[in-house]
């Protein structure tokens, strides 16, 4: 199996490559803009099948040349690039996956369905943790029910010891800022609609040590696809984040200061957008922390997916908890819950385990239970709770 990973030196890309190498002994082309950064990442992985490569994902012809030669192209770079990379993969006649199109791009990507089918390839849209694992849990829950009414998704993260440390999101700061400044989309009563940023406040019980958190609607890809691809009458889909209170304040402050803006600002003759600045700052800090040998703090990433509906004429609910802790043995952070799914998916695409063709989100093409078992091998833990309710009185 041969996989081209774009954005290979990013937080997620690096871990995806490592998983491809360690679990599948795959041949990988690790591509990114800056060669030295990729080399740094690759040097830490024990494999002689990884080729670092400097490649601009915007350069369609260069990309196509490389893509032609692999089984799967996985885009781990910014989601804005999905719409540039995916068509090239389709043209090259190879499978494709990415980490999600942040709602709007997902819609655009779905328009390529026929082209992908004609080319005989599968483009898996949004196969990280969320979107990704959350979509698969939605599909798993729907399988347990006769009809589905509502799918609610929640996410929280944190550290075992409550710390006063700076807020480092478990994923790209760009995405965090986008999440706090762009209107989330939900499905309500069968209709897709946009709702105000940070509305839909609700308390939700997450696994310990998160416990009860206050969660808000956040723009995410799941509501873009899940009602359509899961069907069974699904009328409501939502995604909420339960922020750790400190992180929430920090991110909100950054967003209010305008760090989510793309518009360039002139500072001392240099013109840079606030979003570029904050991204660069975080990337630098991240690279430094990766280089340092500080003892790892115990940190986690949790998801909860509630699928409610009916089974045998009774109210029923399937709840999935996805729990990922940092792995002290391998030194891999909880962020692997986003980086591992593309690796498994690449393997499933290359070995023919995924047979549907077209542009499909995970809920439409991935068999949940075998996937959960693959996750378990990486200590990404999925628990399922099935609840049936009988009321012995007139409501």
């Amino acid at each position, binding site marked *: 199996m041969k996989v081209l990973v774009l954005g290979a030196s990013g937080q997620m890309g690096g871990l995806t490559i490592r998983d491809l190498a360690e679990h599948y002994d795959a041949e990988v082309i690790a591509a990114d803009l800056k060669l030295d950064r990729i080399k740094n990442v690759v040097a830490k992985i024990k494999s002689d099948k990884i080729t670092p490569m400097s490649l601009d994902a915007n350069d369609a012809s260069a990309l196509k040349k490389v893509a032609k030669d692999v089984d799967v192209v996985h885009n781990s770079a910014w989601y804005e690039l999905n719409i540039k990379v995916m068509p090239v993969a389709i043209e090259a006649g190879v499978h494709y996956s990415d980490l999600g199109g942040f709602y709007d791009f997902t819609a655009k990507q779905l328009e390529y369905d026929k082209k992908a089918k004609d080319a005989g390839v599968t483009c898996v849209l949004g196969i990280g943790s969320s979107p990704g694992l959350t979509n698969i849990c939605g599909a798993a829950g729907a399988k347990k029910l006769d009809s589905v009414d509502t799918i609610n998704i929640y996410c929280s993260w944190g550290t075992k010891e409550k710390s006063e440390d700076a807020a480092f999101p478990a994923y790209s700061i760009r995405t965090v800022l986008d999440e706090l400044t762009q209107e989330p989309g939900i499905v309500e009563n069968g209709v897709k609609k946009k709702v105000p940023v940070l509305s839909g406040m609700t308390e939700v019980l997450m696994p310990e040590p998160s416990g009860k958190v206050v969660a808000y609607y956040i723009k995410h890809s799941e509501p873009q696809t899940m009602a359509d691809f899961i069907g069974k009458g699904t009328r409501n889909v939502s995604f909420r984040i339960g922020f750790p209170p400190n992180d929430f304040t920090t991110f909100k402050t950054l967003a209010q200061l305008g760090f989510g803006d793309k518009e360039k600002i002139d500072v001392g003759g240099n013109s840079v957008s606030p979003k570029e600045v904050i991204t660069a700052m975080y990337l630098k800090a991240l690279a430094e922390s990766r280089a340092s040998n500080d003892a790892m703090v115990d940190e986690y990433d949790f998801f909860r997916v509630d699928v409610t509906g009916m089974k045998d004429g009774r109210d029923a609910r399937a709840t999935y908890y996805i729990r990922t802790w940092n792995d002290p043995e391998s030194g891999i952070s909880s962020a692997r819950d986003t980086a591992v799914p593309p690796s498994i998916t690449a393997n499933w695409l290359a070995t023919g385990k995924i047979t549907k063709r077209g542009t499909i989100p995970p809920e439409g093409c991935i068999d949940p239970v075998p996937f*959960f078992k693959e996750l378990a091998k990486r200590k990404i*833990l999925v628990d399922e709770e099935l609840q049936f*309710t*009988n*009321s*012995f*009185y007139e409501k």
Partner: protein
Amino acid sequence: MKALVLGASGQIGALTVQDLVEMCKVDVIASSRSLERTKKAVKDLKINPNKVTTMELDANDLTKLDKVMKKEKPDTVVNCAWYQTNLGVMSVAVKNGVHYTDLGGFFDTTLKQIAQSKKWKDAGVNATVGLGSTPGMTNVAGAAGAARLDKVDTIDIYCSWGNTLPIKEAGWPGYSIRTVIDEFTQQPVAWLNGKHKKMPILSGEKEVLMQEPIGKVKSYYIKHSEPATMGKNLKAKNVTFRIGFPAQDLNTFKTLVQLGFASTKPLKANDGKVSPIDYLTIMYQNAISEGRGEKPPKEKFEFDDFRIDVFGQKNGLPAVATYFIETWNDPVRGISSARDTAVPPAIVSYWQGTKKIKAPGAYTAEVTVDPIPFFKELGRRKINVTEHFERVTKYY
């Protein structure tokens, strides 16, 4: 059919009479030590007088009780007086071939009651004991949960209550103040690892999620009948019972106990002698009797809430059946939430009289009461049982 109710003037007994008449459509002989109090109860609850005969009858006067049974030939007797009378009443009932039910025996009496089972078997009559809300509905819910599972591990029972009044009324228990005092002065017993184990008073503190508007509440072990029998009957390793007291009530009851109101030793006051517990009981009895005459409120404002968790295995996977039993005062019929204790003995008495329950012997509710039809009967009285059955699968 005809039912004889003892303790019919009580908080619970009066409502049992009402249910037997209005919902079960049976004839009732309502009795207590005071004809006057019983008559007042029947009148205050506006129970159809053509269906009820009132009578003065002390449940400790077994000779008179025997005479009444012989003369009136009731099909069943429902004992709603204090539990200290249970064994005596049973001995008369079994002699006369009359089915029997009551509100519970506070652990020790319960065990003595079911130890009589052989006598009842020989006589071919049924005694189903401990049939209020708790014990009673809780035992049936435990049985329902056990029926859902292949293997039962633990049954945890929680009880709570409250009201939505802006200023909470202090210390108004939904059951006999004597029982409350017992609960605060006697060591609770839990069924742990297949054995009865005495625990310290108010130990076992645990936060439990009850239905809204209670939410999370701190609960404590309390001596109760459920752990006496449910472990053995339902093959559970552990059975516990806890009460999640509303904070003010906990405070009031603790204060009363600390003031010495639990004492049965007569105290000299003015010219007379009275034991503190009896005095307190009379105070509560009068207040309840007066309260019953008042116009019933038009809104829902007070409730009882029970939670029963039955943990075990189903198809080799961990599974939990949880039952919530929620009862609000019924503004339409003007009946308080205390009906959740009064209705179960009425249903069981009716089922005994109509041969739906007929197993000869003396049993607790988890053995003889068929859960689903029982829950549906409760539903007709707006005693709302909700069952959640949960199976957990770990994919790792």
